[in-house]
Structure formats: structure tokens, C-alpha cells
């Protein structure tokens, strides 16, 4: 980060005429505001988690029961949100193919911080039953900063609720900060992402 050229992103995947259309700034890290202010804000963040409605794998089917009368996620302040701009929690539902990962990265980077990632199922941890497949990734934490893993194949809605409550506790205790982690290790994450997403035809940091 010493000189200015290093601050700019190359955006090599884009054609030349599209380069000026996109932002080339790197993600920044953010310091907490003040002890008590941040504590109050974290309380608000923890009690109003908006999930991005993007089902990436079979685990998306486990999110639907959460909205029904039986599990009722609204009472914990969770709500689905149709656009990444407004969402704060990205629930990765199970196995992720390379094609999906590309869209996931794009959506994740469009989310406004502080943002959190919950990964469901053994597929996101070590590949699960698709560990030796040619098109599904093995470890999600090489591509995105994951806050909570919920194990199972697939985890039941009760497990999801437990995971969300754990995430809330972590936010309140200020133990998790995916946005800053992503910004700090940006080069490492980007190298990993680019290693498997072969046709990188989007800006390096799309926000």
C-alpha cells in the first residue's frame, strides 16, 4: 500500500473500453467507532440481520422452512432481502460450483459492510460428498471470509437457528469482522478466486 499504483486494481478481466466504467479502488479496513457507540451499533446489527435471498445449493431449501410459522425466523430480526445492496448476511447453501462461486463473489462484494457469511453443510467445509468433483470447490474459506460454519448434510432449520444465534452473539462480542478480514487479505483471496474462476470477465472488486 506504499505507492499509489499499488492501490489501484488492474481490472485485467475487462475489455479495454469498459475499464473506465468500473471502480478500481481497493476495499478498505474500518476501525470501530468508539467503545460504547460501537457496542450499541453492534447490538442493532445483531438484531437486524438481513439475509441475501440467494440459494446457491441444496441448502437453500432449508432456508424456506425458517420463514414459515413453525420456525419463524422473523422473531430474531432475520429477514430475507432480495438485493445484495441491502443484505448483511450471506447464507451459502451447501455445495458451490465454480460457476456459482463467481456470482457469489460478485454478490458478496456488492454487499455493504459490515457483512457476514454463514456457510451451510459439509460441502462448504471440505467439499462433502463432492470433494473430488471437477467443478465444485472444497473450502469456502479460501475464497470468502466465513464467520460461521453449520455442519450437516444438510443442517436442519434448528441448526440454522442455532448458527444464527451464535453469529448474533459473536457480533455483539465484536469477535467477527469479515469485511475487514477480506480487505486485509484481499490479495490472497483474489489470487485464490482467480485461480479457479478461469474466465474472470468482471472487475476485480465490484462494488
Amino acid at each position, binding site marked *: 500500500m506504499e505507492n499509489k499504483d499499488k492501490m489501484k486494481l488492474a481490472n485485467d478481466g475487462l475489455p479495454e473500453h469498459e475499464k473506465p466504467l468500473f471502480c478500481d479502488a481497493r476495499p478498505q479496513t474500518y476501525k470501530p467507532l468508539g467503545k460504547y457507540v460501537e457496542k450499541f451499533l453492534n447490538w442493532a446489527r445483531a438484531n437486524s440481520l438481513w439475509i441475501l435471498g440467494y440459494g446457491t445449493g441444496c441448502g437453500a431449501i432449508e432456508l424456506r422452512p425458517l420463514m414459515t410459522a413453525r420456525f419463524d425466523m422473523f422473531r430474531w430480526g432475520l429477514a430475507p432481502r432480495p438485493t445484495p445492496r441491502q443484505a448483511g448476511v450471506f447464507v451459502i447453501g451447501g455445495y458451490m460450483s*465454480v460457476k456459482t462461486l*463467481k456470482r457469489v463473489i460478485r454478490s458478496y462484494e456488492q454487499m455493504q459492510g459490515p457483512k457476514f457469511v454463514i456457510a451451510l453443510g459439509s460441502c462448504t467445509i471440505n*467439499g462433502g460428498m463432492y470433494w473430488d468433483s*471437477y*467443478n465444485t470447490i472444497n*473450502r469456502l474459506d479460501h475464497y470468502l471470509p466465513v464467520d460461521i460454519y453449520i455442519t450437516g448434510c444438510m443442517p436442519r432449520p434448528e441448526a440454522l437457528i442455532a448458527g444464527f444465534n451464535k453469529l448474533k452473539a459473536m457480533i455483539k462480542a465484536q469477535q467477527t469482522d469479515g469485511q475487514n478480514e477480506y480487505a486485509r487479505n484481499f490479495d490472497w483471496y483474489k489470487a*485464490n478466486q482467480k485461480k479457479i474462476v478461469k474466465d474472470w470477465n468482471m472487475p476485480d472488486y465490484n462494488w
Partner: protein
Amino acid sequence: MKEFIEKLIDKYAIKPMHSRHANQVFLTIKQDRLPDALTWLRDFAGYTHLAFITAVDYPEIEKIQLTYMVHNYQENTDIGLRVLLDRRQPEMISVHHLWQHVATYQRELHEMFGIDFPGSPRLKENFALEGWQDVPPMRRDFDTKEYAEKTYFPRPGRETHDPREYMKQKLYPDPKEEK
């Protein structure tokens, strides 16, 4: 069904069929006669629905086998027409003019097996794999495990069992070892 199949065999000089069910037959046909046969089946014999096209790779005999499955709604019968392609340069006549959805199957086959269908629309576009640079992944000489281990950062500590041996051990343990 039987007379009809004989008629088909007469018409297109098809190699002997084999069938496991009364209403399902598989026939192997010469590569260049396939569009004729499919047209005839569709327009005159009532096989109006192409259920799927699939491929099997046989590296032992250097062939790729394509199966075109057509279905007759009136008689509720299926006919699978098989073609053997050369594996080194797999190329097949496109039949997208008969059924529109064939173009999509052919796109997938092109991506997964590397079979070329000249003239098929949008054939070279990405289907499921974006920017794939390796051997087409459904070819049998492509080692998925090796590729996955090389590419996807496997998490250390994974234990893998051969399902057959593992179930044998779990369900029927060797009595001598138990003592």
C-alpha cells in the same frame, strides 16, 4: 412394435437390436443415416418426442457412443438410436433442425465430451463450465480426483473409505479379529 422394427431395419440397414423391455429397444445405426432415421421416426412413425441425447466414452475401443432416445406417446414406446463416433475426432451431424431443444443438448455434449456438431447454434458458448481449459471432464481419461486435489485446496485430515470394504468391516466384522 416388432413388424415396425423390422421395417426400420430394412429401411436403414441397422445392426441387430437389443431390448430389455417390451416397449424399449436400442438399435445401433450408421452415423450418416441417423438424421434420415430420426426424421422418418418423427414424421411417419409417431416418435414425436426426443427425450434426451447422451454419450458414453469408450477409450478401450477408441469410440464415443451417442444415444438418441425418441418416444412415441400413442404407443408408449421408446427407441434408442445409437451411433459410434471416432474418439480422436468426435464429430456428429447436428439434428437441431428436427427439434429445437437439441441445440442445448449438443451444447452440453460439446462441453462435457468435446463432441463437435457443425452448424449447431451457440455450440461454442459456455454451458455449465465457464472457461474450462482442461480435457472435457466427462471423458474417462480425465482424472477428476487428481484435478480436484490440484485445484480446489483440499482440507487436510479427510479420511476416505472404499465403500464396499468399509461396509463389510462395519456390518460383518471378521470373527477372528474380534477375539
